[in-house]
Protein backbone atom coordinates (compact mmCIF):
# COMPACT_ATOMS: atom_id res chain seq x y z
CA UNK A 1 0.00 0.00 0.00
CA UNK A 2 1.46 3.42 -0.88
CA UNK A 3 2.32 5.56 2.17
CA UNK A 4 -0.18 8.30 1.33
CA UNK A 5 -2.99 5.71 1.51
CA UNK A 6 -1.78 4.62 4.95
CA UNK A 7 -1.75 8.23 6.09
CA UNK A 8 -5.21 8.80 4.62
CA UNK A 9 -6.51 5.78 6.55
CA UNK A 10 -4.71 7.13 9.63
CA UNK A 11 -6.51 10.46 9.32
CA UNK A 12 -9.87 8.72 8.82
CA UNK A 13 -9.34 6.62 11.95
CA UNK A 14 -8.22 9.72 13.86
CA UNK A 15 -11.30 11.73 12.89
CA UNK A 16 -13.61 8.79 13.58
CA UNK A 17 -12.19 8.51 17.08
CA UNK A 18 -12.45 12.21 17.87
CA UNK A 19 -15.98 12.34 16.46
CA UNK A 20 -16.76 9.55 18.91
CA UNK A 21 -15.49 11.83 21.69
CA UNK A 22 -12.16 10.17 22.32
CA UNK A 23 -9.91 12.94 23.72
CA UNK A 24 -7.72 14.37 20.95
CA UNK A 25 -4.55 13.46 22.83
CA UNK A 26 -5.57 9.80 23.10
CA UNK A 27 -6.71 9.69 19.46
CA UNK A 28 -3.32 11.04 18.36
CA UNK A 29 -1.55 8.39 20.47
CA UNK A 30 -3.71 5.55 19.19
CA UNK A 31 -3.54 6.47 15.50
CA UNK A 32 0.16 7.31 15.65
CA UNK A 33 0.96 4.02 17.34
CA UNK A 34 -1.11 1.90 14.92
CA UNK A 35 0.43 3.75 11.96
CA UNK A 36 3.92 3.06 13.27
CA UNK A 37 3.07 -0.60 13.84
CA UNK A 38 2.01 -0.89 10.19
CA UNK A 39 4.97 1.04 8.77
CA UNK A 40 7.85 0.10 11.05
CA UNK A 41 6.67 -3.03 12.88
CA UNK A 42 5.51 -3.66 16.45
CA UNK A 43 8.95 -3.40 18.08
CA UNK A 44 9.72 0.03 16.63
CA UNK A 45 6.26 1.30 17.58
CA UNK A 46 6.64 -0.02 21.14
CA UNK A 47 10.07 1.59 21.37
CA UNK A 48 8.49 4.92 20.43
CA UNK A 49 5.87 4.42 23.16
CA UNK A 50 8.68 3.95 25.67
CA UNK A 51 10.59 7.13 24.85
CA UNK A 52 8.11 9.75 23.57
CA UNK A 53 6.15 10.40 26.82
CA UNK A 54 9.34 11.65 28.49
CA UNK A 55 11.14 13.20 25.52
CA UNK A 56 8.10 15.14 24.27
CA UNK A 57 7.64 16.84 27.64
CA UNK A 58 11.18 17.31 28.99
CA UNK A 59 11.87 20.29 26.75
CA UNK A 60 13.08 23.52 28.32
CA UNK A 61 11.19 25.92 26.04
CA UNK A 62 7.92 24.28 27.09
CA UNK A 63 8.56 25.38 30.67
CA UNK A 64 7.39 28.79 29.42
CA UNK A 65 3.90 27.36 28.87
CA UNK A 66 2.83 26.70 32.50
CA UNK A 67 4.63 29.81 33.70
CA UNK A 68 2.81 32.14 31.30
CA UNK A 69 -0.51 30.40 32.00
CA UNK A 70 0.19 30.94 35.70
CA UNK A 71 0.92 34.62 35.09
CA UNK A 72 -2.49 34.95 33.40
CA UNK A 73 -4.19 33.08 36.25
CA UNK A 74 -2.64 35.33 38.90
CA UNK A 75 -3.63 38.43 36.91
CA UNK A 76 -7.15 37.03 36.47
CA UNK A 77 -7.58 36.11 40.14
CA UNK A 78 -6.15 39.46 41.29
CA UNK A 79 -8.95 41.27 39.47
CA UNK A 80 -6.66 43.12 37.06
CA UNK A 81 -9.35 42.91 34.36
CA UNK A 82 -11.67 45.05 36.52
CA UNK A 83 -8.92 47.65 36.96
CA UNK A 84 -8.22 47.72 33.23
CA UNK A 85 -11.89 48.10 32.42
CA UNK A 86 -12.32 50.90 34.99
CA UNK A 87 -9.37 52.79 33.54
CA UNK A 88 -10.40 52.48 29.89
CA UNK A 89 -14.07 53.16 30.74
CA UNK A 90 -13.18 56.42 32.47
CA UNK A 91 -10.79 57.33 29.69
CA UNK A 92 -12.98 56.82 26.61
CA UNK A 93 -16.41 55.76 27.89
CA UNK A 94 -17.96 59.08 26.84
CA UNK A 95 -17.21 58.49 23.12
CA UNK A 96 -19.84 57.01 20.76
CA UNK A 97 -19.84 53.29 21.53
CA UNK A 98 -17.54 54.24 24.40
CA UNK A 99 -18.19 51.22 26.62
CA UNK A 100 -17.62 48.83 23.72
CA UNK A 101 -14.42 50.72 22.87
CA UNK A 102 -13.33 50.62 26.51
CA UNK A 103 -14.04 46.88 26.64
CA UNK A 104 -12.01 46.28 23.52
CA UNK A 105 -9.09 48.30 24.84
CA UNK A 106 -9.30 46.55 28.21
CA UNK A 107 -9.24 43.20 26.36
CA UNK A 108 -6.15 44.38 24.45
CA UNK A 109 -4.43 45.32 27.70
CA UNK A 110 -5.55 42.14 29.46
CA UNK A 111 -4.13 40.17 26.52
CA UNK A 112 -0.74 41.46 27.66
CA UNK A 113 -1.20 39.60 30.96
CA UNK A 114 -2.75 36.37 29.71
CA UNK A 115 -2.30 33.97 26.84
CA UNK A 116 -5.84 32.68 26.95
CA UNK A 117 -8.75 33.94 24.88
CA UNK A 118 -11.43 32.27 26.95
CA UNK A 119 -10.19 33.91 30.16
CA UNK A 120 -10.21 37.33 28.46
CA UNK A 121 -13.71 36.88 27.04
CA UNK A 122 -15.11 35.48 30.27
CA UNK A 123 -13.72 38.15 32.60
CA UNK A 124 -14.49 41.10 30.35
CA UNK A 125 -17.91 39.66 29.58
CA UNK A 126 -18.82 39.48 33.25
CA UNK A 127 -17.68 43.07 33.84
CA UNK A 128 -18.72 44.88 30.65
CA UNK A 129 -21.86 43.16 29.37
CA UNK A 130 -24.17 44.11 32.28
CA UNK A 131 -22.96 47.73 31.93
CA UNK A 132 -23.60 47.77 28.18
CA UNK A 133 -27.01 46.23 28.71
CA UNK A 134 -27.87 48.86 31.33
CA UNK A 135 -26.86 51.64 28.95
CA UNK A 136 -29.06 50.25 26.18
CA UNK A 137 -26.35 48.92 23.89
CA UNK A 138 -27.29 46.77 20.95
CA UNK A 139 -26.52 43.31 22.32
CA UNK A 140 -25.18 42.03 18.98
CA UNK A 141 -22.51 44.72 19.05
CA UNK A 142 -21.90 44.25 22.78
CA UNK A 143 -21.49 40.48 22.72
CA UNK A 144 -19.58 40.54 19.43
CA UNK A 145 -17.07 43.05 20.76
CA UNK A 146 -16.43 41.05 23.95
CA UNK A 147 -16.15 37.70 22.13
CA UNK A 148 -13.81 39.16 19.51
CA UNK A 149 -11.85 41.30 21.96
CA UNK A 150 -11.22 38.18 24.01
CA UNK A 151 -9.44 36.51 21.11
CA UNK A 152 -6.69 39.15 21.28
CA UNK A 153 -5.42 37.20 24.30
CA UNK A 154 -3.63 34.72 22.06
CA UNK A 155 -2.17 37.21 19.56
CA UNK A 156 -0.72 39.82 21.90
CA UNK A 157 2.09 38.27 23.95
CA UNK A 158 2.33 36.25 26.09
CA UNK A 159 0.50 33.66 24.02
CA UNK A 160 0.13 29.93 24.59
CA UNK A 161 -0.52 29.42 20.88
CA UNK A 162 2.82 31.01 19.94
CA UNK A 163 4.61 28.76 22.45
CA UNK A 164 3.01 25.67 20.91
CA UNK A 165 3.65 26.90 17.34
CA UNK A 166 7.27 27.55 18.29
CA UNK A 167 7.55 24.04 19.76
CA UNK A 168 6.07 22.42 16.65
CA UNK A 169 8.13 24.38 14.13
CA UNK A 170 11.31 24.96 16.15
CA UNK A 171 10.95 28.74 15.77
CA UNK A 172 12.07 31.20 18.41
CA UNK A 173 9.23 31.75 20.88
CA UNK A 174 10.69 35.14 21.79
CA UNK A 175 10.55 36.29 18.14
CA UNK A 176 7.02 34.94 17.77
CA UNK A 177 5.90 36.86 20.86
CA UNK A 178 7.40 40.08 19.55
CA UNK A 179 5.91 39.45 16.10
CA UNK A 180 2.42 39.32 17.62
CA UNK A 181 2.56 42.83 19.10
CA UNK A 182 1.94 45.06 16.05
CA UNK A 183 -0.61 42.75 14.35
CA UNK A 184 -2.42 42.51 17.70
CA UNK A 185 -2.56 46.29 17.97
CA UNK A 186 -3.63 46.54 14.32
CA UNK A 187 -6.47 44.08 14.88
CA UNK A 188 -7.53 45.82 18.07
CA UNK A 189 -7.45 49.15 16.19
CA UNK A 190 -9.65 47.73 13.43
CA UNK A 191 -12.12 46.46 16.04
CA UNK A 192 -12.22 49.95 17.57
CA UNK A 193 -12.69 51.59 14.16
CA UNK A 194 -15.61 49.29 13.40
CA UNK A 195 -17.26 50.02 16.77
CA UNK A 196 -16.77 53.77 16.32
CA UNK A 197 -18.00 53.70 12.72
CA UNK A 198 -21.15 51.69 13.60
CA UNK A 199 -22.00 53.88 16.60
CA UNK A 200 -21.47 57.17 14.77
CA UNK A 201 -23.64 55.90 11.91
CA UNK A 202 -26.33 54.66 14.27
CA UNK A 203 -25.94 56.15 17.79
CA UNK A 204 -28.63 53.85 19.17
CA UNK A 205 -26.24 50.90 18.83
CA UNK A 206 -23.90 52.25 21.50
CA UNK A 207 -24.88 55.41 23.39
CA UNK A 208 -21.97 57.32 24.97
CA UNK A 209 -21.27 56.64 28.64
CA UNK A 210 -20.82 59.26 31.35
CA UNK A 211 -17.77 61.50 31.47
CA UNK A 212 -15.52 61.59 34.53
CA UNK A 213 -13.41 64.37 36.04
CA UNK A 214 -9.77 64.28 34.98
CA UNK A 215 -8.68 63.60 38.58
CA UNK A 216 -10.84 60.45 38.76
CA UNK A 217 -9.67 59.27 35.34
CA UNK A 218 -6.04 59.68 36.33
CA UNK A 219 -6.54 57.94 39.66
CA UNK A 220 -8.11 54.93 37.87
CA UNK A 221 -4.77 54.44 36.10
CA UNK A 222 -3.19 53.63 39.46
CA UNK A 223 -4.74 50.18 39.32
CA UNK A 224 -2.95 49.20 36.13
CA UNK A 225 0.57 50.58 36.42
CA UNK A 226 1.91 47.43 38.06
CA UNK A 227 0.75 45.09 35.33
CA UNK A 228 1.90 47.54 32.67
CA UNK A 229 5.37 47.63 34.25
CA UNK A 230 5.40 43.82 34.44
CA UNK A 231 4.47 43.51 30.76
CA UNK A 232 7.24 45.94 29.80
CA UNK A 233 9.73 44.01 31.95
CA UNK A 234 8.74 40.58 30.56
CA UNK A 235 8.35 41.45 26.89
CA UNK A 236 11.09 44.09 26.99
CA UNK A 237 13.40 41.51 28.57
CA UNK A 238 12.60 39.05 25.80
CA UNK A 239 13.02 41.74 23.16
CA UNK A 240 16.47 42.84 24.21
CA UNK A 241 17.49 39.23 24.80
CA UNK A 242 17.94 39.40 28.58
CA UNK A 243 15.47 36.57 29.23
CA UNK A 244 14.78 33.29 27.51
CA UNK A 245 11.00 32.68 27.09
CA UNK A 246 11.04 30.32 30.08
CA UNK A 247 12.82 32.88 32.25
CA UNK A 248 10.40 35.55 31.05
CA UNK A 249 7.56 33.22 32.06
CA UNK A 250 9.10 32.83 35.52
CA UNK A 251 9.48 36.59 35.90
CA UNK A 252 5.91 37.15 34.63
CA UNK A 253 4.36 34.55 36.93
CA UNK A 254 6.28 35.69 39.99
CA UNK A 255 5.68 39.35 39.15
CA UNK A 256 1.92 38.81 38.84
CA UNK A 257 1.99 36.81 42.10
CA UNK A 258 3.97 39.53 43.90
CA UNK A 259 1.68 42.29 42.59
CA UNK A 260 -1.37 40.36 43.74
CA UNK A 261 0.09 39.83 47.21
CA UNK A 262 1.40 43.41 47.47
CA UNK A 263 -2.01 44.85 46.60
CA UNK A 264 -3.75 42.32 48.87
CA UNK A 265 -5.73 41.01 45.93
CA UNK A 266 -4.45 37.44 45.86
CA UNK A 267 -5.81 35.38 48.72
CA UNK A 268 -4.50 31.91 49.59
CA UNK A 269 -7.56 30.36 47.94
CA UNK A 270 -6.98 32.39 44.77
CA UNK A 271 -3.31 31.33 44.81
CA UNK A 272 -4.26 27.66 45.06
CA UNK A 273 -6.99 28.07 42.42
CA UNK A 274 -4.45 29.66 40.05
CA UNK A 275 -2.04 26.74 40.57
CA UNK A 276 -4.82 24.19 40.05
CA UNK A 277 -6.17 25.75 36.86
CA UNK A 278 -2.65 26.11 35.46
CA UNK A 279 -1.78 22.50 36.31
CA UNK A 280 -4.93 21.21 34.62
CA UNK A 281 -4.26 23.26 31.48
CA UNK A 282 -0.60 22.22 31.41
CA UNK A 283 -1.50 18.56 31.78
CA UNK A 284 -4.03 18.38 28.98
CA UNK A 285 -1.90 20.47 26.59
CA UNK A 286 1.25 18.43 27.17
CA UNK A 287 -0.53 15.07 27.02
CA UNK A 288 -1.85 16.32 23.70
CA UNK A 289 1.72 17.09 22.67
CA UNK A 290 2.81 13.56 23.61
CA UNK A 291 0.09 12.25 21.27
CA UNK A 292 1.04 14.67 18.51
CA UNK A 293 4.70 13.65 18.75
CA UNK A 294 3.71 10.03 18.19
CA UNK A 295 1.35 10.97 15.36
CA UNK A 296 4.06 13.10 13.73
CA UNK A 297 6.52 10.20 14.00
CA UNK A 298 3.98 8.20 11.97
CA UNK A 299 3.65 10.99 9.37
CA UNK A 300 7.43 11.34 9.10
CA UNK A 301 7.96 7.58 8.66
CA UNK A 302 5.28 7.55 5.98
CA UNK A 303 7.10 10.43 4.25
CA UNK A 304 3.74 12.16 4.08
CA UNK A 305 4.80 15.78 4.54
CA UNK A 306 7.52 15.39 1.90
CA UNK A 307 5.11 13.75 -0.55
CA UNK A 308 2.54 16.49 -0.01
CA UNK A 309 5.16 19.22 -0.25
CA UNK A 310 6.58 17.83 -3.53
CA UNK A 311 3.11 17.44 -4.98
CA UNK A 312 2.06 20.99 -4.08
CA UNK A 313 5.27 22.45 -5.50
CA UNK A 314 4.85 20.42 -8.71
CA UNK A 315 1.56 22.22 -9.36
CA UNK A 316 3.45 25.48 -10.00
CA UNK A 317 0.54 27.51 -8.69
CA UNK A 318 0.99 31.03 -7.40
CA UNK A 319 2.22 30.95 -3.81
CA UNK A 320 -0.45 33.48 -2.81
CA UNK A 321 -3.14 31.27 -4.31
CA UNK A 322 -1.82 28.31 -2.32
CA UNK A 323 -1.70 30.44 0.82
CA UNK A 324 -5.32 31.48 0.24
CA UNK A 325 -6.29 27.80 -0.14
CA UNK A 326 -4.62 26.95 3.17
CA UNK A 327 -6.28 29.92 4.88
CA UNK A 328 -9.70 28.98 3.54
CA UNK A 329 -9.16 25.41 4.69
CA UNK A 330 -8.70 26.69 8.25
CA UNK A 331 -12.04 28.51 8.32
CA UNK A 332 -14.33 25.45 7.96
CA UNK A 333 -11.93 23.40 10.09
CA UNK A 334 -12.17 26.00 12.83
CA UNK A 335 -15.93 25.65 12.77
CA UNK A 336 -15.78 22.08 13.99
CA UNK A 337 -12.47 21.53 15.75
CA UNK A 338 -10.96 22.71 18.97
CA UNK A 339 -8.44 25.42 18.12
CA UNK A 340 -5.50 23.80 19.89
CA UNK A 341 -6.17 20.45 18.24
CA UNK A 342 -6.49 22.23 14.88
CA UNK A 343 -3.11 23.89 15.39
CA UNK A 344 -1.43 20.64 16.41
CA UNK A 345 -2.91 18.68 13.54
CA UNK A 346 -2.28 21.14 10.72
CA UNK A 347 0.93 23.01 11.47
CA UNK A 348 3.27 20.00 11.00
CA UNK A 349 1.59 19.39 7.62
CA UNK A 350 1.37 22.94 6.25
CA UNK A 351 4.52 24.43 7.74
CA UNK A 352 6.99 22.70 5.34
CA UNK A 353 4.84 23.72 2.37
CA UNK A 354 4.62 27.34 3.50
CA UNK A 355 8.35 27.66 4.12
CA UNK A 356 9.20 25.98 0.81
CA UNK A 357 6.95 28.56 -0.90
CA UNK A 358 9.23 31.23 0.54
CA UNK A 359 6.94 32.62 3.27
CA UNK A 360 8.52 33.65 6.55
CA UNK A 361 7.91 31.06 9.32
CA UNK A 362 7.44 33.75 11.98
CA UNK A 363 4.97 35.63 9.78
CA UNK A 364 3.06 32.39 9.16
CA UNK A 365 2.89 31.87 12.93
CA UNK A 366 1.09 35.20 13.25
CA UNK A 367 -1.31 34.30 10.42
CA UNK A 368 -2.05 30.92 12.02
CA UNK A 369 -2.77 32.51 15.39
CA UNK A 370 -5.22 34.98 13.78
CA UNK A 371 -6.92 32.02 12.08
CA UNK A 372 -7.10 30.27 15.45
CA UNK A 373 -8.67 33.45 16.87
CA UNK A 374 -11.24 33.40 14.07
CA UNK A 375 -12.01 29.76 14.86
CA UNK A 376 -12.88 30.80 18.41
CA UNK A 377 -15.74 32.85 16.98
CA UNK A 378 -17.18 30.79 14.14
CA UNK A 379 -20.32 28.69 14.61
CA UNK A 380 -21.22 26.03 15.56
CA UNK A 381 -18.36 25.57 18.06
CA UNK A 382 -17.01 29.13 18.46
CA UNK A 383 -15.90 28.76 22.07
CA UNK A 384 -15.77 32.48 22.90
CA UNK A 385 -19.38 32.87 21.75
CA UNK A 386 -20.42 30.02 24.06
CA UNK A 387 -18.61 31.67 26.95
CA UNK A 388 -20.47 34.94 26.25
CA UNK A 389 -23.72 33.03 25.88
CA UNK A 390 -23.28 31.59 29.38
CA UNK A 391 -22.78 35.11 30.76
CA UNK A 392 -25.81 36.55 28.92
CA UNK A 393 -28.35 33.70 28.77
CA UNK A 394 -31.07 36.10 27.61
CA UNK A 395 -29.23 36.83 24.33
CA UNK A 396 -29.77 33.96 21.87
CA UNK A 397 -26.60 32.32 20.58
CA UNK A 398 -27.70 33.12 17.01
CA UNK A 399 -27.56 36.87 17.83
CA UNK A 400 -24.10 36.47 19.33
CA UNK A 401 -22.92 34.68 16.19
CA UNK A 402 -24.44 37.50 14.07
CA UNK A 403 -22.67 40.02 16.26
CA UNK A 404 -19.22 38.57 15.60
CA UNK A 405 -19.54 38.77 11.78
CA UNK A 406 -17.98 42.27 11.40
CA UNK A 407 -15.18 41.35 13.80
CA UNK A 408 -14.55 38.12 11.91
CA UNK A 409 -14.32 40.19 8.70
CA UNK A 410 -11.78 42.46 10.44
CA UNK A 411 -9.67 39.41 11.17
CA UNK A 412 -9.69 38.46 7.49
CA UNK A 413 -8.83 42.07 6.62
CA UNK A 414 -5.89 41.87 9.03
CA UNK A 415 -4.67 38.70 7.31
CA UNK A 416 -4.89 40.43 3.91
CA UNK A 417 -3.02 43.49 5.25
CA UNK A 418 -0.34 41.26 6.79
CA UNK A 419 0.02 39.32 3.54
CA UNK A 420 0.68 42.51 1.56
CA UNK A 421 2.67 44.16 4.35
CA UNK A 422 4.42 41.30 6.21
CA UNK A 423 6.77 43.87 7.76
CA UNK A 424 4.02 44.74 10.23
CA UNK A 425 4.66 41.35 11.84
CA UNK A 426 8.37 41.08 11.01
CA UNK A 427 9.68 44.58 11.73
CA UNK A 428 10.09 44.16 15.49
CA UNK A 429 11.54 40.60 15.35
CA UNK A 430 14.07 41.82 12.75
CA UNK A 431 15.15 44.67 14.99
CA UNK A 432 15.54 42.05 17.71
CA UNK A 433 17.84 40.00 15.46
CA UNK A 434 19.99 43.04 14.74
CA UNK A 435 20.24 43.75 18.45
Amino acid at each position, binding site marked *: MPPWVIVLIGFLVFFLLVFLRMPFG*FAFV*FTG*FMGLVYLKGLNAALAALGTIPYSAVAIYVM*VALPLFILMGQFAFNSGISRDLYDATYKLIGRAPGGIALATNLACTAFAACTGSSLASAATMGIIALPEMKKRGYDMELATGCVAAGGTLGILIPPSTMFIIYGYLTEQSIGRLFIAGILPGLLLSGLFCLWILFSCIRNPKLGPPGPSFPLQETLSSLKGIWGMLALFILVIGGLYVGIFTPSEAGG*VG*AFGAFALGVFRRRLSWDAFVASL*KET*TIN*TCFILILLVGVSLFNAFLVHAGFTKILQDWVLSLHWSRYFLLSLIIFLYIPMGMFM*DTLAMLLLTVPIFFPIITSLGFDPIWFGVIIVILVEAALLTPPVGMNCFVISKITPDVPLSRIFRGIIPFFVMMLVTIVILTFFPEIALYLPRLMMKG
Partner: protein
Amino acid sequence: MVSLFSHFAKMVRMASKILMAISQGLLAILMFLSIADVIGRYLFNRPIFGTLEMSEVLLVSIVFFGSAYTLYLDKQITMELLYNRLSPSAKKTVNIITRLMAFSIFSLMVWKVTEKAFYFKETNRLIPSLLWPIYPFMLFVSFGLILISLELLIQIVYLFKDPKQVISEGGN
Protein backbone atom coordinates in the same frame (compact mmCIF):
# COMPACT_ATOMS: atom_id res chain seq x y z
CA MET B 1 -17.75 -7.27 44.40
CA VAL B 2 -19.15 -3.87 43.46
CA SER B 3 -18.29 -2.54 46.89
CA LEU B 4 -14.74 -3.88 46.60
CA PHE B 5 -14.43 -2.20 43.23
CA SER B 6 -15.77 1.12 44.48
CA HIS B 7 -13.21 1.03 47.31
CA PHE B 8 -10.51 0.41 44.74
CA ALA B 9 -11.81 3.26 42.56
CA LYS B 10 -11.90 5.59 45.55
CA MET B 11 -8.32 4.71 46.41
CA VAL B 12 -7.10 5.28 42.86
CA ARG B 13 -8.92 8.60 42.63
CA MET B 14 -7.59 9.66 46.03
CA ALA B 15 -4.07 8.86 44.81
CA SER B 16 -4.73 10.92 41.66
CA LYS B 17 -5.98 13.80 43.77
CA ILE B 18 -2.93 13.69 46.04
CA LEU B 19 -0.63 13.59 43.02
CA MET B 20 -2.52 16.54 41.54
CA ALA B 21 -1.85 18.49 44.75
CA ILE B 22 1.84 17.52 44.54
CA SER B 23 1.81 18.63 40.91
CA GLN B 24 0.48 22.04 41.96
CA GLY B 25 3.22 22.31 44.58
CA LEU B 26 5.84 21.45 41.97
CA LEU B 27 4.44 24.18 39.74
CA ALA B 28 4.94 26.71 42.54
CA ILE B 29 8.50 25.39 42.99
CA LEU B 30 9.08 25.79 39.24
CA MET B 31 8.01 29.43 39.44
CA PHE B 32 10.23 30.17 42.45
CA LEU B 33 13.16 28.30 40.88
CA SER B 34 12.85 30.34 37.67
CA ILE B 35 12.73 33.68 39.47
CA ALA B 36 15.54 32.72 41.85
CA ASP B 37 17.71 31.77 38.87
CA VAL B 38 16.95 35.05 37.08
CA ILE B 39 17.65 37.12 40.20
CA GLY B 40 20.81 35.12 40.92
CA ARG B 41 22.04 35.51 37.37
CA TYR B 42 21.32 39.17 36.73
CA LEU B 43 21.67 40.73 40.17
CA PHE B 44 24.38 38.62 41.79
CA ASN B 45 26.00 37.00 38.77
CA ARG B 46 25.34 33.63 40.43
CA PRO B 47 22.72 31.60 38.54
CA ILE B 48 21.38 28.42 40.10
CA PHE B 49 23.35 25.55 38.66
CA GLY B 50 21.27 23.14 36.55
CA THR B 51 18.07 25.24 36.45
CA LEU B 52 17.40 24.21 32.87
CA GLU B 53 17.51 20.48 33.62
CA MET B 54 15.67 20.86 36.92
CA SER B 55 12.92 22.80 35.14
CA GLU B 56 12.60 20.02 32.56
CA VAL B 57 12.21 17.26 35.15
CA LEU B 58 9.84 19.43 37.17
CA LEU B 59 7.70 19.89 34.05
CA VAL B 60 7.70 16.13 33.41
CA SER B 61 6.63 15.49 37.01
CA ILE B 62 3.91 18.17 36.91
CA VAL B 63 2.40 16.75 33.73
CA PHE B 64 2.40 13.07 34.64
CA PHE B 65 1.41 13.57 38.29
CA GLY B 66 -1.56 15.73 37.29
CA SER B 67 -2.88 13.97 34.20
CA ALA B 68 -4.94 11.17 35.78
CA TYR B 69 -6.90 13.67 37.84
CA THR B 70 -7.35 15.89 34.76
CA LEU B 71 -8.84 12.87 33.02
CA TYR B 72 -11.16 12.27 35.97
CA LEU B 73 -12.28 15.92 35.79
CA ASP B 74 -13.02 15.35 32.09
CA LYS B 75 -10.80 18.30 31.14
CA GLN B 76 -9.22 16.68 28.08
CA ILE B 77 -10.04 18.29 24.72
CA THR B 78 -12.88 16.43 23.01
CA MET B 79 -15.32 17.01 20.17
CA GLU B 80 -18.99 16.78 21.09
CA LEU B 81 -20.67 17.61 17.79
CA LEU B 82 -21.47 14.14 16.46
CA TYR B 83 -21.38 12.42 19.83
CA ASN B 84 -24.21 14.58 21.16
CA ARG B 85 -26.51 13.28 18.45
CA LEU B 86 -26.07 9.66 19.53
CA SER B 87 -28.66 7.82 21.61
CA PRO B 88 -27.76 7.14 25.28
CA SER B 89 -27.05 3.47 24.57
CA ALA B 90 -24.89 4.30 21.54
CA LYS B 91 -23.01 6.85 23.67
CA LYS B 92 -22.38 4.20 26.29
CA THR B 93 -21.08 1.71 23.71
CA VAL B 94 -18.88 4.33 22.09
CA ASN B 95 -17.49 5.43 25.46
CA ILE B 96 -16.64 1.86 26.38
CA ILE B 97 -14.92 1.17 23.05
CA THR B 98 -12.88 4.39 22.97
CA ARG B 99 -11.81 3.98 26.59
CA LEU B 100 -10.81 0.36 25.96
CA MET B 101 -8.66 1.49 23.04
CA ALA B 102 -7.07 4.21 25.14
CA PHE B 103 -6.59 1.78 28.04
CA SER B 104 -4.75 -0.72 25.84
CA ILE B 105 -2.36 1.91 24.46
CA PHE B 106 -1.68 3.45 27.86
CA SER B 107 -1.04 0.01 29.37
CA LEU B 108 1.52 -0.61 26.65
CA MET B 109 3.03 2.78 27.41
CA VAL B 110 3.33 1.87 31.11
CA TRP B 111 5.14 -1.34 30.19
CA LYS B 112 7.58 0.29 27.78
CA VAL B 113 8.29 3.41 29.87
CA THR B 114 8.93 1.26 32.97
CA GLU B 115 11.20 -1.02 30.94
CA LYS B 116 13.06 2.04 29.68
CA ALA B 117 13.38 3.38 33.24
CA PHE B 118 15.04 0.15 34.41
CA TYR B 119 17.26 0.13 31.33
CA PHE B 120 18.39 3.69 32.23
CA LYS B 121 19.01 2.50 35.80
CA GLU B 122 21.15 -0.42 34.63
CA THR B 123 23.13 1.72 32.20
CA ASN B 124 23.44 4.52 34.79
CA ARG B 125 22.02 7.14 32.41
CA LEU B 126 22.37 10.62 33.93
CA ILE B 127 20.75 14.01 33.39
CA PRO B 128 23.39 16.22 31.73
CA SER B 129 25.10 18.79 33.99
CA LEU B 130 23.11 17.82 37.12
CA LEU B 131 24.42 14.26 36.90
CA TRP B 132 21.29 12.97 38.61
CA PRO B 133 20.05 9.54 37.50
CA ILE B 134 17.28 9.89 34.96
CA TYR B 135 15.39 6.71 35.90
CA PRO B 136 13.45 8.04 38.92
CA PHE B 137 11.87 10.65 36.66
CA MET B 138 11.05 7.98 34.08
CA LEU B 139 9.41 6.06 36.92
CA PHE B 140 7.37 9.20 37.76
CA VAL B 141 6.15 9.14 34.14
CA SER B 142 5.38 5.46 34.49
CA PHE B 143 3.49 6.02 37.74
CA GLY B 144 1.43 8.81 36.17
CA LEU B 145 0.64 6.57 33.21
CA ILE B 146 -0.40 3.74 35.57
CA LEU B 147 -2.91 6.09 37.20
CA ILE B 148 -4.21 7.22 33.79
CA SER B 149 -4.67 3.57 32.78
CA LEU B 150 -6.42 2.75 36.07
CA GLU B 151 -8.68 5.79 35.71
CA LEU B 152 -9.63 4.59 32.22
CA LEU B 153 -10.30 1.10 33.61
CA ILE B 154 -12.45 2.52 36.41
CA GLN B 155 -14.43 4.57 33.90
CA ILE B 156 -15.01 1.46 31.75
CA VAL B 157 -16.33 -0.52 34.73
CA TYR B 158 -18.50 2.38 35.90
CA LEU B 159 -19.93 2.72 32.40
CA PHE B 160 -21.35 -0.76 32.94
CA LYS B 161 -22.23 -0.41 36.62
CA ASP B 162 -22.93 3.20 37.52
CA PRO B 163 -22.53 5.81 34.76
CA LYS B 164 -22.89 8.71 37.24
CA GLN B 165 -19.49 7.81 38.70
CA VAL B 166 -17.61 7.90 35.39
CA ILE B 167 -16.27 11.45 35.71
CA SER B 168 -16.29 14.07 38.40
CA GLU B 169 -19.40 16.22 38.49
CA GLY B 170 -18.60 19.76 39.44
CA GLY B 171 -14.95 19.42 38.73
CA ASN B 172 -13.68 18.85 42.25
